[in-house]
């Protein structure tokens, strides 16, 4: 009886010690994890041979690690910095070396590098890699084509890549339409809307969807304002000096708000942009 009581007391003491240690370790671990240090991705020359027969699984794990890291950064500060872009580029490069056919990492890197970090060039390098390995997929040339048009203003490049995308057997009909529209349209916001809506269809990730929906909302508002400017021009044979003139003349009831916290403004050529550049403020 006495030995049982001693055992119970000893076990209770050990459990308490374990719980104390657990709390201490995890409290300090939280501090390490919340430190905005940059994560490190082992190059594929190391991860490739190391993952032996499990390269697919290793690519899944690395991708999950990368998305978690980006998600945490976005939740914490709402913005990504250039160093994050470096990390994403290297991670996706390593992941795509492990499994070059894995589409999700290419998609994520394009979205983050080009839209969040204004680095279409590096996004394009990874998309070209996707194109080389996913020869029958219409999406890589479609994304490059769109990027050429929207981020670089290079219609020739856009038409070339959209043309390649349109040639793929499973390319949706709007790809062909979008390709031709790039040649003639003066409404890039509308083209971007079509593109982002396609991206929204392509993802289930909650954080990504949240960002896309917000961006789509701003582009819809930009497109609405440009449409109103065109109506103003048709009616008064001149461009409005400020957007408020649109409400004063009754063309719009009110100027919508930018969910990113910026202000919409009109350029001399009638194009409408926002001071937020579609990014959350500091």
């Amino acid at each position: 009886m006495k030995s049982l009581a001693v055992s119970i007391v000893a076990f209770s003491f050990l459990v308490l010690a374990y719980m104390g240690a657990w709390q201490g370790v995890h409290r300090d671990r939280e501090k390490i994890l919340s430190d905005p240090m940059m994560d490190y991705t082992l190059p594929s020359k190391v991860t490739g041979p190391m993952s032996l027969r499990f390269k697919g699984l290793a690519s899944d794990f690395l991708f999950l690690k990368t998305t978690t890291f980006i998600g945490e950064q976005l939740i914490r500060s709402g913005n990504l910095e250039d160093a994050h872009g470096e990390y994403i580029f290297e991670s996706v490069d390593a992941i795509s070396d492990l499994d070059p056919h894995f589409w999700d990492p290419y998609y994520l890197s394009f979205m983050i590098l080009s839209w969040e970090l204004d680095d279409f060039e590096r996004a394009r390098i990874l998309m070209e890699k996707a194109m080389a390995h996913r020869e029958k997929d219409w999406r890589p040339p479609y994304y490059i084509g769109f990027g050429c048009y929207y981020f670089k203003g290079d219609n020739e490049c856009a038409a070339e890549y959209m043309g390649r995308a349109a040639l793929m057997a499973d390319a949706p009909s709007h790809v062909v339409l979008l390709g031709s529209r790039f040649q003639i349209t003066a409404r890039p916001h509308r083209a971007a809307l079509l593109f982002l809506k396609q991206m929204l269809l392509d993802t289930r990730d909650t954080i990504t969807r949240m960002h896309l929906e917000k961006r789509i909302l701003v582009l819809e508002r930009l497109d609405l304002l440009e449409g109103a400017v065109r109506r103003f021009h048709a009616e008064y044979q001149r461009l409005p000096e400020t957007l408020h003139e649109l409400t004063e003349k009754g063309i719009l009831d009110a100027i919508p708000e930018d969910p990113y916290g910026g202000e919409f403004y009109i350029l001399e050529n009638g194009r409408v942009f926002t001071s937020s550049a579609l990014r959350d403020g500091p």
Partner: protein
Amino acid sequence: MMQRIWALALLTFKEGMRDRALYGIFLFSLMVMALGFVVVGFFMRELSKVASDFNLSALTFGGLLLTLFVNNQLLAKDIDKRTIYIVLSRPYGRGEYIVSKYLGLMLLTSAAIFMLAVCASAGVGLSYLRYPAYFESFSFKIFLLAIFGEFLMLAVLNAVVVFFASFSSSAFLTLLFSTAVYIVGETIETVVRFLKTQAQSTEVPMAAAVEALLNVCRYIIPNLSVFDLKVQAAHGMAVSLSYVLFITFYGMASVLVLLFLASQIFKGRELG
């Protein structure tokens, strides 16, 4: 002779089925497959790839544990417990003993792979039922072909284990040698490709000794990565019939060479 071989193979299989480690491996693989079902939901679009990766990797890992630990122990047990004398005192040749043991191990591996394949298919099936829209590119035929590829790899690895067991004095040494061959067999292709690319890009020719060593490794150690069709299964990419036939032939030839060498070595081995 065939009857004798079959009888001993069956005995080895039954002995293996009694090993509790087998159930542990099976449970572990099931847990990985269940984890895969949960993790699939964390991904964006290619859920069929992730489901396929998880389930096939769990199957492979289970098969590797079985071959390197359970099957290795089964071979060593005969010598440790001296049951080999009972077998060899009957009209069994040493070559027959090696072939019977290998067939017994393969029966055990086949049964385990069959059970794991049923679980892996169920795991992918469950993910499909939950996210049917993300399984457009998935092909069950290629998934089964990838399982066949893993089976071929395990057949070769079992022959490697039998080969080392034919002359090593302990199960630990057999495990060590077999694991080394497995790692080299999986990485040799990548290493050769990397070194050749480096040599081409730097315009510094590869040292003759390194090249000779690599070539020796390439021809002597079975290239196990050729049996890996998991990427094809993950993306529903077609595999040509000629490739499937070639890897089957390559696997069978490797097994026969290893068993022949094991028989010859075992014939000259002093037991006791």
